[in-house]
């Protein structure tokens, strides 16, 4: 069997658009006593809770920055709340991450090098710079209330810019972190997963700030933030549907919807994250005066659903890594190697 007959480059996966929506491509070839081929991650609630907090904090900083740059004077409370909420990322988030390390006393080794191929390395620096810039912004915001420190307020307006940029990274890099592994469900649709994390971050940030405005600020601000949350939720719903179709096409959907998957958890997550907010926001949009109850219900759906979505994706991923059928189906040669391998 001459090896020169092998293709030199790995070709792109050809689009198989003829697959019916409801079918799932499954691997039914040999396995080694049904043993897992790859190892699942050891990430528990601390890590998926961190992805949620990081996204929320980063998005809160982005919204606060946008409100500071383009919003009306009545949006001052949104700016203030957003800057304080952004602090949850470097404080609660870092605590969760360091507690998750199996040798936490060496947490500072995360900043020993920068490795551009590792989203965890990239993310460590995003978290650090977000921490410093949003910390500086929040401190300037807090102390700028004192008359003799009024000069700090424009300083806050400057430091919020790098904070917002790194805040965009905070909501995104965790999706890339999951995608850059060999876990089938996480690796099957890297672009869609990361974009979903980004949309969920913006939705949760907007929903949290909207709740704060609804119960202690200006209802008009809350309406605007509700519209932002609705746009993000709509985008997330579309990307979610596309991602599920891609998972079926790559043969890894069994961990999400198969008989072993906790279908109840998935449906609850979907309902809370997508259905409830879209219905409530949609009804609010057509009502002459937006209902406070619907807005609150929608915000609750977004916030709880976002958390449940992260949990579902993490559990489904770890499950798919333990299933040899998922990984072996995911790693079948996409190009034609009939002459090299013995026939299955």
């Amino acid at each position, binding site marked *: 069997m001459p090896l020169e007959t092998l293709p030199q480059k790995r070709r792109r996966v050809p689009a198989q658009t003829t697959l019916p929506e409801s079918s799932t491509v499954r691997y039914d070839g040999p396995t080694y006593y049904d043993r897992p081929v790859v190892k699942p991650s050891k990430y528990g609630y601390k890590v998926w809770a961190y992805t949620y907090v990081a996204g929320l904090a980063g998005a809160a900083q982005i919204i606060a920055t946008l409100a500071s740059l383009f919003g009306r004077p009545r949006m001052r409370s949104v700016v203030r709340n957003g800057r304080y909420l952004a602090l949850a990322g470097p404080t609660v988030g870092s605590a969760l991450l360091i507690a998750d390390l199996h040798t936490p006393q060496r947490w500072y080794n995360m900043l020993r090098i920068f490795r551009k191929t590792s989203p965890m390395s990239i993310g460590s620096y995003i978290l650090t710079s977000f921490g410093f810039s949003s910390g500086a912004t929040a401190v300037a915001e807090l102390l700028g209330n004192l008359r003799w420190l009024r000069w700090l307020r424009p300083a806050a307006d400057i430091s919020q810019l790098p904070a917002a940029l790194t805040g965009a990274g905070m909501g995104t890099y965790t999706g890339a972190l999951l995608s850059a592994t060999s876990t089938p469900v996480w690796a099957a649709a890297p672009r869609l997963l990361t974009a979903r994390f980004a949309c969920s971050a913006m939705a949760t940030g*907007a929903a949290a700030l909207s709740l704060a405005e609804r119960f202690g600020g200006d209802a008009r601000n809350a309406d605007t933030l509700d519209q932002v949350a609705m746009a993000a939720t709509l985008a997330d719903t579309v990307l979610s549907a596309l991602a599920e179709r891609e998972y079926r096409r790559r043969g890894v959907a069994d961990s999400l919807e198969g008989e072993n998957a906790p279908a109840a958890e998935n449906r609850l997550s979907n309902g809370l994250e997508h259905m409830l907010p879209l219905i409530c926001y949609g009804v609010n949009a057509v009502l002459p005066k937006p209902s406070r109850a619907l807005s609150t219900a929608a915000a609750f759906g977004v916030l709880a659903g976002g958390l449940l979505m992260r949990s579902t994706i993490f559990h489904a991923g770890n499950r798919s890594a333990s299933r040899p059928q998922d990984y072996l189906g995911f790693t079948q*040669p996409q190009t034609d190697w009939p002459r090299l391998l013995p026939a299955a």
Partner: protein
Amino acid sequence: METQQRMRDYPDSSVNRMIPDESELTAGVKIEAGKRYGFFTDTTRCIGCKACEVACKEWNALPADNLGLSGMSYDNTRQLSAHTWRHVSFIEKVRDSEAPPDDGRVTRMQPYQSNWLMMSDVCKHCANAACLEACPTGALFRTEFDTVVVQQDICNGCGYCVPACPFGVVDLSEVDGKAHKCTLCYDRLKGGLEPACAKSCPTDSIQFGELEDLHQRAHQRVDALHRIGVGDAYLYGAPDSPGATGGIGELNAFFLFTDRPETYNLPPAPTLPSTRVKPALLSGLAAMAGLALAAGMLIAGGGERD
């Protein structure tokens, strides 16, 4: 020959001092920094004695794990883990795929290769290693012998290398909270000794040497097997072969198989996870930018309802 001359300097069967450049005598290769070393594991020579597992455990003082009977033929070790760096797999091909469906007996056997597959699994020391590219602390690094090693005094147990490895090799230890895997006996290589598993293998199924040399031997072996009728023999992990796909390049520890890789619990076409970093990040940032634009417009517009 010079080597045979050197061998005569050590006639005793038990030597109580270190032999300089011992690998020259035991493996036929002198170990020098800057050259690329690896394993060629010829599964057609493996007899399933597990001397490699024992030697590895003994040399690296690894604790016992994966205890108990598994019911998987003679494989009670089950998997590579933080404390198991060599794992011998046993596959008994009870039914021949070409036999009629009702016939449970094996009616056909390849010449020279029984229907019993045995393979000693190990860290592949990939040329483009997913674990190395995933490690944020730099604990995983490439040595001067072109192998991949975890520095135990730097690793903080983040565990990102564990799901990254496309072959499921590296693992986090619950005992000491750090990641562990085969080091290709880095300490032995530094002392001029060949790795413990290669030295203990009685049939030379595990061959240690310089990569070009091993590739040559491997191709010759595949040709020889094809000539005598073992038509299914192929290399797994050599450049442009199954196992060395998707950006991984090649595996410094490569294999000769006579069945599909899935039978040996290995993926036929794994991918390098870091190829997904840029597309994922760009898509995520694009989504963020789009939503931020929409949010900015909504905030500036004000959504006048008053």
